[in-house]
Structure formats: structure tokens, C-alpha cells
């Protein structure tokens, strides 16, 4: 990446690699602290990380409620147990 830098003990590329783990809360504590330190110093990574996290949150919220299947399909499925 053009302008990639090291801050907080990690490089921008390393932050990119663990970004999903950070958002999902599955990164180990040591790396999480390093990433947080990096984001305090690197504006580009902070902006991208914030937007990336917002996208994932929006995906989880906006598609959370599935549409019902139509009545005909549901009735065919229910009949499986009666045949």
C-alpha cells in the first residue's frame, strides 16, 4: 500500500489482515491493543476500519428479517409430515 506505515507496533497491512477478527471480537488481547494503538496514530486505517465495521453492522441489521415464504410453498412443506 502506498504510504503504508508502522504505528503502535504493527504495519497497516497487518491491521488490514486482522480487521475482521477485531470487529468480531476474536483477536487476541495483545494484537487488539496494538491495533488500537495503530488506529490512534494512523488516520487512513482508522477511517477505513470505522467504515468497514459500519458496513458489517449494516449488513447484519438490514437483512436480519427474512420475508415469509408464500402460503402455497409453506403448505407443501407442512404436508410432508402428513403424507
Amino acid at each position, binding site marked *: 500500500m502506498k504510504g503504508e506505515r508502522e504505528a503502535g507496533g504493527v504495519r497497516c497491512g497487518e491491521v488490514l489482515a486482522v480487521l475482521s477478527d477485531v470487529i468480531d471480537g476474536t483477536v487476541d488481547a495483545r494484537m487488539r491493543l496494538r491495533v488500537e494503538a495503530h488506529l490512534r496514530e494512523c488516520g487512513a486505517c482508522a477511517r*477505513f476500519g470505522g467504515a468497514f465495521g459500519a458496513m*458489517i453492522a449494516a*449488513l447484519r441489521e438490514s*437483512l436480519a428479517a427474512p420475508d415469509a415464504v408464500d402460503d402455497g*410453498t409453506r403448505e407443501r412443506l407442512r404436508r*410432508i409430515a402428513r403424507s
Partner: protein
Amino acid sequence: MSDEAVLERGDAALIARTARGDAGAFEALVDRRSPSLFRYLRALARDEAAAEDALQETFLAIWKNAGGQRTGADARAWMFTIARNALFRLQRRRAGEPDDFTPLEALGGDAGWGSELSPEHIAVVAQQRRLLAAALESLPEADREVLLLRDVEGFSGEETAAILGMTLANAKTRLHRARLRLAAEMKRRLER
């Protein structure tokens, strides 16, 4: 206990009763889970008719094999695994896809990582459900599937990996790359 955890416990009880031939329990399972299973199949297949056929096969398999499902917290994952296998069987497809060797930095760059420009547009576009759904639908099948399971249906990383038949590490890698491609797709749509 979360709403989903309450439903999950209910699924296990309904499956146990279905295994004993309780048609009412099976019908309750249909009413409760057919919407999310159909959404998953339709998004995966991108073919309404194929998704309907797979949904029928899914519930046929649930009715026949309910006795083989061990009780516990993975009842919903079990149903989604059956659905996935039903669709692949109908389409006679291989379960896996070729590995993606695109460098992570290239995927990130496409999504706006490292750019001087503000990537907030990714978040802005994400607020628009229609554009988000369209962006998701345009992704390759492997990307759609992991995003559907992990982020839309809310399965854990371990459950997602089990449904996909891969290790947790591979599932996490696939998920991250899929999320980056989704961000790149939304960036591209906004810049049209």
C-alpha cells in the same frame, strides 16, 4: 438469554418431537425456519425455482432424519447444513471452489483501504438496504455464502465453518476476503 438462543432451544425441542413422528412439531418448524432457510437458498442459488426445490428437499430430509440430530445448541446449524447439501446435490456441484489467491492488500485497495479519499461512502451506501442487497447478490457464490451464514444469519465462526465443511481458520479467511469484496462492490456502485 438472547432471542435467537430462545429460538435455538425451541428448534431442538421441535426436532426431538419431529423424530417421534409429531407432525405438529414439524409444521411449527416449517413455519419458524422456512423463511430464513429459503432466504439462504435463494441467495446462494440465485434461482428461485432451484431454491424452492432445495427447500422441499431440505424439509424432507429433516422429517426423515430428525432422529439422527443430536440435541444441543447446533439445531439451526444442522438444518442449514442439510439445506446447503440439498442445493448442491440438486445442482450436482462440488462443495468446494478454487482457492482465491488475490493478495489481501489488493482486495483492501479495491475497497478503499489506504486511499487518501474518505471511505465513509462504504458506510453511507451500507445504510441503503437495496444497494447492500444488490451488492451482496453480485458477489461470487463462495463470498455470498459465508456472508449469509456469518453476518446475515448470525452463526458463530465455528458453526459457519462446520456448515461449510472447513476449518475455522479457512472460514475466517474466506469471511474477511468476502467482506472486503463486498466493500469494494459498494464502493464501485457508489462511484457509478
